[in-house]
C-alpha cells in the first residue's frame, strides 16, 4: 500500500481536501432536495390528486442515468460542480418526496383531531405535530438519499474531473496505481456509512419517545 495517501499533484487537492470536496458535492444536493421536497410533499398530502402524477414524473427522472444527466447539463452549467450537484439534488428529491408523503400521511386522524381541538392552526399543526411524527420516515428517506448521493459524486470524474474522490480513479488508471482506486472506493464507502450512522443518531435525538429499535431502511 505504498503511496496510498500520496496523491498526484494534478488532482489539485490533498486527501483531506478531496474528502471535503466530496462531502460538499454530495451533501448540498441532499439538503437542497430536502428543502424542495418538504413543500412538494405537503402539496401532495393537501391535494391528493397531485401525488400520482408527481410520483410518475419522479420515477422517470430517477431512471435517467446520472452520467447522461451530467453530460446534458454541461450545455447549461459547463464542466462545473453545479453540473454534478443538480442531478444529485433531483435524485434526492425523488427519494424524499414519497418518504415524506408516506410519513405525513401515517399520522393518525385522532392525533390530528386532538391537535385541532387544542386550537392548533394548520401551520402549527404541521410544524409541531405532523412533521415530528413523520421524522422516522423522513430520516429513512434521507439515509437512502445521502448514501446514494455520496456514492454518485464519483461519476462526476467523467466530466472534466468534477468527481472529488472519484478523480482518484482517473489517476489510478492513467498512472497505473491501483492503490488510488482502492483508496477512492473505500473512502467513499466509509463516508457513506458514517453519514448513515450520523442520521440514525439524529433520528434517535429527534424522536426520544420511540424505542431505540433499528428500523431497516427500505
Amino acid at each position, binding site marked *: 500500500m505504498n503511496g496510498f495517501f500520496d496523491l498526484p499533484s494534478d488532482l489539485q487537492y490533498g486527501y483531506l481536501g478531496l474528502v471535503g470536496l466530496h462531502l460538499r458535492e454530495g451533501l448540498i444536493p441532499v439538503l437542497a432536495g430536502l428543502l424542495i421536497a418538504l413543500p412538494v410533499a405537503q402539496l401532495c398530502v393537501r391535494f391528493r390528486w397531485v401525488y400520482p402524477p408527481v410520483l410518475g414524473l419522479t420515477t422517470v427522472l430517477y431512471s435517467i442515468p446520472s452520467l447522461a444527466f451530467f453530460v446534458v447539463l454541461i450545455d447549461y452549467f459547463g464542466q462545473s460542480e453545479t453540473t454534478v450537484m443538480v442531478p444529485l439534488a433531483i435524485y434526492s428529491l425523488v427519494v424524499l418526496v414519497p418518504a415524506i408523503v408516506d410519513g405525513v400521511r401515517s399520522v393518525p386522524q385522532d392525533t390530528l383531531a386532538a391537535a385541532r381541538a387544542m386550537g392548533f392552526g394548520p401551520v402549527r399543526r404541521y410544524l409541531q405535530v405532523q412533521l415530528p411524527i413523520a421524522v422516522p420516515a423522513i430520516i429513512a428517506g434521507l439515509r437512502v438519499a445521502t448514501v446514494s448521493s455520496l456514492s454518485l*459524486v464519483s461519476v462526476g470524474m467523467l466530466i472534466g474531473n468534477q468527481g472529488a474522490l472519484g478523480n482518484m480513479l482517473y489517476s489510478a488508471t492513467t498512472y497505473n496505481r491501483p492503490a488510488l482506486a482502492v483508496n477512492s472506493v473505500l473512502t467513499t464507502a466509509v463516508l457513506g456509512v458514517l453519514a448513515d450512522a450520523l442520521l440514525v443518531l439524529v433520528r434517535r435525538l429527534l424522536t426520544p419517545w420511540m424505542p431505540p429499535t433499528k428500523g*431497516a431502511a427500505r
Partner: protein
Amino acid sequence: MNVLHFAQAFFSDGSHWHGRDGIPTRLSEHVKYSLEALLFAAAVGLPVGLVTGHYGRGGNALALIATAGRALPSFGLLVLMFIWIGFGMVPVMIPLVVLAVPPILVTTYEAVRSVDPSPVDAARGMGMPESRVLLQVELPVALPLVLSGLRTAAIQIVSTATIAAYVSLGGLGRYIIDGLYQRDYEKVVGGAGLVAGLALATLVVFWAAARLAVSPGVRRSG
C-alpha cells in the same frame, strides 16, 4: 425544447437504427447485461431475505450489509475491478450486483417478516413443515412487496448498466459515453431517452408480473 430537439434528431437519423452501433444491438446488449445482473442479485438476495425473514433474525446484520452495499460507489467499483480483473463482463457484473442486492435483500426480509402471523400459525397447526410454511403461506402473501424490491433493483440496474460502456463494453451507455467524448449531444440525449424508456418498460413488466403472480385475495387486501 432544446433536449427534445436533440432527441428528435437522434431518433430520426436512419444510421442509428442498424449495424453494430445501432439501437437494436445496443438495446439488446443493455437488456442482456441488466437481466444477468438481476438474476445474480436475485439468486443472492431472495433466498437470504426469505430465510432471515422467516426466522425474523439478523435484521440488524442485513441493514448493515445493505448500507455498506449502497455506500460502495458503483462507478468506483467498476474502475477498480477493471484494473484488477481486466476487460470482460465480470468487472461490470460485480458493481451491478452489489448495487442490486441491498434493495432485494432488505425488502424481502421486511416483506416476509411483516406477514400476518395468524395464517402462519394456522399453517403450522395443520402440520406444515417450515419449508412449506415459507413457500406456500408466507411467500404468496409477501409477494407484492418482494416484487417491489426486485423492481427497485431492476430499475437501478437498468440505469446504472450504462457505465459498462466506460470499460469498452456495449449497451446503451455507449451512446452516452461516445456522445460525451465526441461532443455529440444528440447521442447523449438519445441514449438517455432510451434508458429512461427501458426503465419505464421495466416498470410495466413488473406491474404485469404482479397482476399475474399475486393471488387475487392478497391483492384485494393489500
